[in-house]
């Protein structure tokens, strides 16, 4: 035979195991979470009463003599029911437990039964005082200690003969309080865990819904932004055009434009707004509209760009600016008149194998309202290939942060002078893709290619 202390400990351990499993199962049910979230329907309260009434009966039935004193967790069920579901649930479960206790008889039957109902009621009142929410672990466990103390007080007050009641209470008071407090701790712990878990999952759901909404908005923004670019490129006798803009994110700050002009002349624009993402996209919408209007108004590129700068400067908070190259092609005269406002110099590969860069002739738009812009003119020859690009092309990086580079682009463009506009565009895109490989595209990338027919 094992010593009494060991067997009693095993029995106590067994009781706690039942409490843990019961607590786990009951807290996972829908009605329990509904009650925790404030849905105190009659059906939920009835289930609560029944479930914790049964736990209370188990508490009486499993009661054992521990070191010679009768010990039980009858009050635990009604207390939890009260803390979770309020006074009705607490009293209900208490009445079931009390009814069973009465049938067991004994000189403490009335006091113990009354204590069980009262424990359920008081726990329910605490729930009410706590705005119908489960109180924290500390309050629930302190409540359990207090109610078990009250239980002992009732035995002393009601049960007779008094001498027997005093002897019983002095034997069981401490273990009864301890075991019920432990049971309450288990429930509180699991219940609060559950509440945390549900709160986290609610927040995650909300965050995901928000994310979905934002993604949908960005998708629409992207479509709107794409509509700012020319839907198709004009066909020019003796010339060919090709263009493509690829934002690094859903929306970007690059744009290009092809504008009709009086006398068969054609305006070409390529531009790159500072920064990326939504701020850049908004500024791009402003800049492209302003530039289009200004180009329609003015004959000379210099005037169009100066005016656009003045307008953009008025709107450029937080240091936003846009580098822009604007040129007017006169197809008949074969001249290109341009202004480079701080943009990466376009490359012109000439039929003779040389390459010139159309250097910057002024500051980026939006940076300085008093900026002056210089206009330059070059003559085109049959076979010339003009490549306009944004820095997303030359600064495209591979996995080890090596940039594609200006020199490599220049070399490439020089070798493409015999190709069509579309072929040249595709070849540059392929070369950049071969350089970056799997590295993610970091910046918006735009190319506009003009080929002079030979």
């Amino acid at each position, binding site marked *: 035979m094992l010593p009494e202390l060991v067997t009693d400990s095993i029995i106590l351990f067994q009781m706690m195991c039942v409490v843990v499993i019961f607590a786990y199962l009951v807290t996972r049910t829908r009605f329990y979470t509904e009650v925790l979230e404030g849905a105190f329907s009659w059906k939920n309260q009835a289930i609560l009463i029944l479930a914790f009434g049964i736990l209370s009966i188990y508490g009486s039935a499993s009661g054992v003599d521990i070191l010679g004193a009768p010990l039980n967790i009858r009050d635990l069920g009604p207390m939890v029911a009260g803390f979770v579901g309020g006074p009705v649930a607490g009293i209900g479960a208490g009445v079931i437990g009390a009814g069973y206790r009465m049938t067991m008889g004994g000189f403490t039957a009335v006091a113990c039964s009354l204590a069980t109902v009262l424990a359920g009621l008081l726990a329910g009142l605490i729930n009410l005082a706590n705005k119908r929410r489960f109180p924290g672990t500390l309050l629930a466990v302190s409540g359990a200690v207090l109610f078990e103390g009250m239980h002992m007080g009732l035995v002393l007050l009601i049960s007779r003969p008094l001498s027997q009641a005093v002897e019983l209470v002095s034997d069981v008071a401490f273990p009864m309080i301890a075991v019920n407090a432990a049971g309450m701790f288990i429930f509180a712990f699991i219940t609060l865990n559950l509440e945390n878990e549900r709160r986290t999952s609610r927040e995650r759901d909300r965050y995901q819904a928000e994310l979905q909404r934002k993604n949908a908005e960005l998708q629409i923004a992207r479509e709107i932004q794409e509509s700012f670019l020319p839907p198709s490129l004009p066909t020019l006798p003796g010339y060919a055009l090709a263009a493509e803009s690829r934002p690094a994110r859903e929306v970007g700050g690059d744009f290009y434009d092809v504008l009709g002009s009086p006398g068969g002349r054609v305006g070409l624009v390529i531009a790159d707004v500072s*920064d990326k993402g939504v701020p850049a996209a908004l500024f791009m919408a402003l800049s492209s509209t302003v530039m289009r209007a200004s180009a329609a108004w003015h004959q000379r590129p210099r005037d169009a760009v100066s005016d656009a700068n003045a307008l953009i400067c008025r709107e450029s908070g937080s*240091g936003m600016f846009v580098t822009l190259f604007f040129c007017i092609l006169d197809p008949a005269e074969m001249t290109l008149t341009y202004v480079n406002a701080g943009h990466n110099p376009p490359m012109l590969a000439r039929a003779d194998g040389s390459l010139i860069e159309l250097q910057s002739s002024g500051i980026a738009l939006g940076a300085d309202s008093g900026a002056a812009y210089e206009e330059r003119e070059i003559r085109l020859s049959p076979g010339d290939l003009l490549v306009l690009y944004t820095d997303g092309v030359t600064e495209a990086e591979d996995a080890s942060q090596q940039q594609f580079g200006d020199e490599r682009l220049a070399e490439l463009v020089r070798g493409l002078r015999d190709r069509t506009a579309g072929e040249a565009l595709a070849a540059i895109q392929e070369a950049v893709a071969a350089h970056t490989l799997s590295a993610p595209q970091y910046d918006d990338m735009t190319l506009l290619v003009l080929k002079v027919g030979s």
Partner: protein
Amino acid sequence: MSTILQVAEERRGDVPVLFLKGRMDATTSPDAEAHINRLIDKGDRQLVVDLSGLEYISSAGLRVLLSGLKRLKASGGAMKLTALAPEIQKVFDIAGFNRLFLIYRSLDEALGTDTAR
């Protein structure tokens, strides 16, 4: 090459000097922007930014410096940049920002010079 931007501040007399080291792009610039704004909010009107440790600057980085310059100019102040590496200088040259900022070869030169160049 690094993927971060270190921002350090030193006072030389009355003038705050900001040392930017590493890579100034869309991801890393917000710290520097907050730092510059904090100095201006506190009442500093002269700011020297030492770029000797800068390896790369994107348009997002230029925007941050331009934003600071505009705020300082609006309240009668000035921003001086010093010690630009050739690649950084090239980015400033292309955007035309070399005409907008006061650019010095070294920190001593920037600190010893009057704002009205």
